[in-house]
Structures are given as C-alpha cells and as structure tokens.
C-alpha cells in the first residue's frame, strides 16, 4: 500500500527503500544489541552497527536530501520517507546518532564551508563517531553555568575542565564541545568547538547508570588542544550555536535520518499485545476495563504525537513555526515513560525479573526500558526546562531565569 500523497519520484524512492531494506537487512548480531544507540559499549556491536550505517548511507537512506558537495544524495523531500521506512523495517538503529542528529544540523547552520566538507561525509558513513560535551558536573539544567575553560595560545585553544553524561564518549573521534573563554560573561563567554578525542589531554571514564549499563561517561579535559579552525561560530557565540544543536536534539532540527531506537507506535503495539497475552486474576489484562482505559489513553497520545508531526508542517494549522516542534522531546519522553509504567503494571510481579533472568519476559526489556525513559525526561534539558522554554518562547510568558 503506497501513500497517495507522494510525488512519482518519492513513490519510486519509497519502493526502492522498502526493497533495499528487505534485501539488505543484516543477520542479528550473536549477542543482543542494547535498546538504543546511546547504550552501546561492546566493540563488536560498534563494528556491526558502523558497517550497517555505512551501507545505509551508501544506499541513500542517510543524508538523502543534502547537497552532494557535503556528501549528501541531492534528493528532494525524500529523507522523511527513508527514515519512516528504516523505522518500520525492524533493522538496527544508526550508531552515530549524535553525529547525525546534532553535529550535522549544527554544522549546516553554523559551520564554515571547509568544516561542512570535511566533517559531514564521515558522520554519514559512521567513520567518525561523535559525542556531545555540553553538561558538566556543576552545569546540568543551568547549562550556561558551565566552567570548562578555553584559553587561546597562537592558533590553538587549550581546554581544561570536565564534562559529564557523555554518551558514546568511549568510541568517539570528535566531541561537540562548549568551553568558556570569558569567566565574567555568562552567555557571551562561551565558545563552541569540534574537539578531536584522540589526544593525551582527554581521558574518558565510564559512568554506570541505575540500569547497570554504562553507555555514558565522564570526560576529563586536561590541557586538551583544539585548533582555532575547529571553532564553530565566533568567539563568544557558543551559546547561540549550542541552541542550534539543542533545537535539533529536541526534535525541531533538519532531519538527516537519525533513527535511534524503536518507533513509539511500535512499542505501543507491543504493550497492547502484552496486555492481550498476559493473564492475571482469571482474565486477560486487556479485559480489565481499568487497565484498558489507561492503555488506550496512551495510545491516543501516541497517535496525537504522530499527527502533531504532520501538522507542524502545515502553516495554516500549526499555530507558529516552533510551537509543535519544541513539544516533541517533552511529550515523546513523557509518553514513553507512561507507556513503560503501564507495561510494568501489566506484568505485575513478573516485572521484577530483570535482564539475565531466564524467566524474565522479553529478557527484562520492560523494566530496563522503563528506567531508560529517564534519559528522555532528564537529558537534553529536563522536562521542567522544556516547559520553561515552551512557556517563554512559544507563549511569551515571563522568563523564570
């Protein structure tokens, strides 16, 4: 069944994507992959996922709409199609999600021509894995209070400080780095860099999360060196450039095909199935009207997010360009969290069985997934910060400071 609203070129590309994904779907890795790209720590998973991303890039499923000079495929309005097909094909996620989802839009918006030509192609092919160095132990939701220092010496910068919650830091070749060149100017004292990770001044140390996984790290910058040609934007414009990165992280950026895990609707369908398959107190959980109402309420919100995405592109109906896109990260993460809470409720005591227990339903996927939903509601600006942003930027309410 193809979509009636597509142009002939788009329809042809959609058919191509489907056939290609069907034919090239990789055999599963011998050990199960983590639920999302930001949890990957096993080097053999990295190799497997890097090869997969490179293959998809070559086929045109990544950077579909970008110009050829930046390593793109020069198509028009095809990325959304490719991403949808990738998401529904049951194939592995793309490992280089920070590169695709944050570095690419930031470079496209604020990078020099030389930076775009040098850095974009190896991001698409996953030859260079990227990480993000924004948060610090003392700078979380109040990101602009960051303290890592940048001192210019000749044509390079000397960086000192530490970064935290650095997903993929253990594999990354480059970091999107914010550092402070002026201690006396909170917002205007920040500069944005592309920092090479493979150097003696940088040490990466894993952090174990509540799930027991260690997909993210603390990164110590001890006289790390970054060339001035790796600065993005002017000295002191780092905060503005960082906003471009964060807007992409929160779902409002230009899509180049970052697909990090299962689609919300796929997880939703699994939960409905779980309720139909799970029997308790003499009936299917699905036949308990209280549980069914809770499940269908989240189903309703998941569908709404889907159509919000479509409405965001309809000028007459969207209520302003940023109103819906800025809600994406907040609602997506909160809906996912409720959905996982419901899955645990459906399972009842079975939800106590965790990864590695032979009786654990879906190998502990639900309690693991539930705990990981806090990644969504806390990182990249917590839900509370998102509500401030929406209230201030979209509704024009006074800044809470």
């Amino acid at each position, binding site marked *: 069944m193809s979509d009636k609203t597509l142009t002939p070129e788009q329809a042809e590309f959609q058919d191509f994507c489907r056939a290609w994904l069907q034919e090239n779907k990789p055999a599963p890795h011998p050990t199960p992959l983590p639920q999302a790209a930001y949890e990957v720590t096993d080097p053999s998973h990295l190799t497997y996922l890097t090869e997969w991303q490179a293959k998809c890039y070559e086929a045109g499923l990544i950077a579909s709409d970008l110009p050829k000079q930046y390593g793109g495929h020069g198509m028009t309005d095809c990325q959304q199609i490719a991403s949808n097909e990738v998401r529904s094909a049951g194939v592995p996620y793309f490992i280089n999600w920070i590169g695709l989802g944050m570095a690419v839009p930031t470079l496209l918006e604020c990078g020099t021509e030389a930076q775009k030509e040098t850095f974009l192609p190896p991001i698409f092919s996953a030859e260079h894995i990227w990480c993000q160095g924004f948060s610090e132990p003392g700078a979380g939701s109040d990101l602009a209070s960051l303290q890592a220092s940048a001192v210019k010496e000749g044509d390079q910068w000397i960086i000192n400080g530490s970064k935290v919650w650095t997903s993929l830091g253990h594999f990354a070749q480059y970091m999107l780095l914010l550092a402070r060149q002026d201690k006396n100017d909170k917002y205007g004292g920040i500069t944005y860099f592309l920092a090479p990770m493979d150097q003696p001044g940088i040490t990466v140390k894993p952090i174990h999360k509540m799930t027991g996984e260690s997909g993210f790290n603390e990164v110590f910058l001890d006289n790390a060196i970054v060339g001035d040609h790796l600065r993005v934007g002017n000295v002191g414009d780092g905060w503005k450039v960082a906003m471009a990165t964060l807007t992409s992280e929160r779902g409002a950026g230009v899509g180049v095909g970052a697909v990090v895990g299962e689609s919300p609707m796929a997880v939703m369908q699994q939960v409905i199935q779980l309720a139909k398959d799970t029997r308790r107190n003499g009936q299917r959980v699905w036949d308990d009207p209280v549980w069914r109402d809770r499940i269908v*309420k989240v189903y309703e919100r998941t569908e709404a997010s889907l159509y*919000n995405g479509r409405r965001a592109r309809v000028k007459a109906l969207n209520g302003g360009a940023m109103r819906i896109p800025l809600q994406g990260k907040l609602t997506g993460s909160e809906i996912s969290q409720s959905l996982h809470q419901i899955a645990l409720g459906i399972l009842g005591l079975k939800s106590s069985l965790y990864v590695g227990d032979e009786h654990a339903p879906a190998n502990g996927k639900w309690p693991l997934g539930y705990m990981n939903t806090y990644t969504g509601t806390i990182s990249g600006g917590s839900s509370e910060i998102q509500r401030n942003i929406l209230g201030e930027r979209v509704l024009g309410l006074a800044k809470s400071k």
Partner: protein
Amino acid sequence: MTTPKDFGFDDDINMLKDTYAKFLLEQKTTESLRPSLKGTEDPYHGSPRPAYFDTQNWQKTVELGMHAVAIPEAQGGIGMGLVAATALAEEIGRYALPTPLSNNLLAAFILRQAPTDSAKQLLEDMASGLCAALALYGEDGSLEADSTDVQFSDGKLLGSAWYVTDAQKCDVLIVAAQCQDGIDLFRVNRADPTVELSPDRIVDLTRDQARVAFHATDAEPLTEQGQGSRCLNLALPALLTLTAADIAGAAEWQLQATADYAKVRHQFDHPLGFFQAVKHPIVDMMIATDETRSLVYQAAAAFDFDPDDAARCAHLAKSSASDTAEFCANRSTQLHGGIGFTWEADVQIYHKRQMHSQFMFGDGVWQRAKLAELL
C-alpha cells in the same frame, strides 16, 4: 496514511475558516451574550434563563453561506466535506457561539447517510435557512442507538427525548424513535401543538437545552425499516469530530486567555507567568490542546479521504477532546485565581461550555472503550 499531508485544509477551506473567524470576531460573541444573562445569575431565586438566539448573527451566517457548507450541491448546498465543517466548528468553539449552525452541521451529516427523498427534502429546506436540532437521547443520556425513549406507532410519536440542544433555536427536530423494525429517524415541526418543550436549566450559558415530549405527534419518516441506527452509526464519526473541534477551539481560547492573564497580572513583584507553578500548567494546556487539534484534523481528513479509518480516528479525537475540555477548563479557572471564579470573567463562560461538550456523544472513557474494540 492515506489522508492528505495538509489534512485536506486546502486554500478554499482555509479561506472559509478565515472568513468565518473574522465575522465572529466582529460579532463580539460573549459581549453580545451578556445582556441575556442579566437577572438569571442566581440559581435559587433568579429567573429562568431565556434561550439566547442572536437572529441577526444567524441571518448573516446564512448570507455568508456557512449554513449550507455541508449540504450536498444537489440539495442546494455547497457540498463540502467534514474538513470544511470541522473548520467552522472549531471557530464556533473558539468564540463560544450560541448558534444553530452547530446542530445544522451535525444534522447534515446524519441526513447525508439517509437515502430517502424526505431526507433530501429536509437538506434542501436547511439549505434555505431552516434550523434543525437533534432529539436522539433517552433519559440516561446514553448514546447506544436503542436508548431513545420515543416510540413510533400508527404514524405518531409518543414519549420524550432528553438533552435536546438548541431546541428553542430550531424549526424542526430530527427524532430517533423505536419502531417495529428497530430505530428510525423522523422529522417533526417544533411548532406542532402536540410537541411539548420543557426548557432545562443548564450550566452551559452558551447553549439552550430542553426535554421534548411528543403527545401523538405527526412525524415524517426520514429513514425506513429500522435504517435509522445504521444512519446514526455512519454519521457518528462526523458527530464526534465536530464536537471535538468545538472543544479544540474553546481550549485554544482558554489557553491564550490564561497565558495573556499570566502576562499582565503581577504578584510578588513578577508577572504570574514568571512562576513555574503557573507557567508549567499553562504549557500543559497547550500540549493537551495541540494533541486534540491534531487528532481532530486527522479525524476530519479520515472521514473525507479514508472512510475505513474514520471511526477509529473520530473516537481518538473525542477521547482526547473530552479530557482536554476538562483539563483546560480546570486550569483556566484555577490559574486566573479569584477573578476566574467570578461571573464577570469570560473564563466561566468557556468553562461551562466545555463541561457540557465533554459529555456530548460520549466522554473520554466511553470513546476509549469503543476504541479498544477496534485495536
């Protein structure tokens, strides 16, 4: 997804929506309503509230052709679909407008499902400006098709219909009644001496409502052989979507009014919106409203372009809308503080309209029970 990317909101429909919105803005709808409320405030000692019907507003609505939007061209209408009707319903909600147009739109979608000449004749009469209201509910207000308490036998209607919205603004009633073969729909003149109208005292200030008793009333069948329930079931997605659109429009008003108030009202040296305890729930109103709006547009598009999916999408839209109605009404009053609790503030007008709309054609819980059957 086989509905259009713009949900079918093409240039014609956007222009229609803008024209109607501009007209309603000039009408100062809540200000015009106010004089009719004078002396009726006190529920214990006040006089019963007369049904408010701005006939000039209605005349202009007819002059603009809005009344005929959903009536087929063959019956003298404009022949547009549910997307266009939804655009109008959303504006009606945004301006909390008391208008027979709401029920005329609903009626048009019911009558379009009936193949009879009498249904076509009624559509034609509506295209000339006749107002119709719906008498579908029994006392329990349940929407199950067999819940009507009205009986049809020997060519006459007997019994009562409950919760008839806009009963005092209409010329004819579309009545669901039990017949030998099931449920059929009938056309009744509201002015018929055997039709006894008892106005309800209701919370909602923007609509009127009545119980209508039929004492052996002459009635013209609009459907035959028990096809009335089929007709209602086919029209139900449209009824749900239009009601949800009204809620979405009103919720957007509640959101904007509350945000505006949080900018001008100062406490503790700051505008209210500075405080996150106020700011965050206003954002939650926006999130609820946007979810409802997107589901409403999708439901309208599904009805016009992907009918197989229309029922599911409509239940989704009204499920979301009913909860949004409750939530936005609740927050709008709470966040306005003392003034929001007064008769003087317009938030109360919208709050009460939402309290009414929330339960029309089934609340959120009912929609979700219906949805679950489809999943």
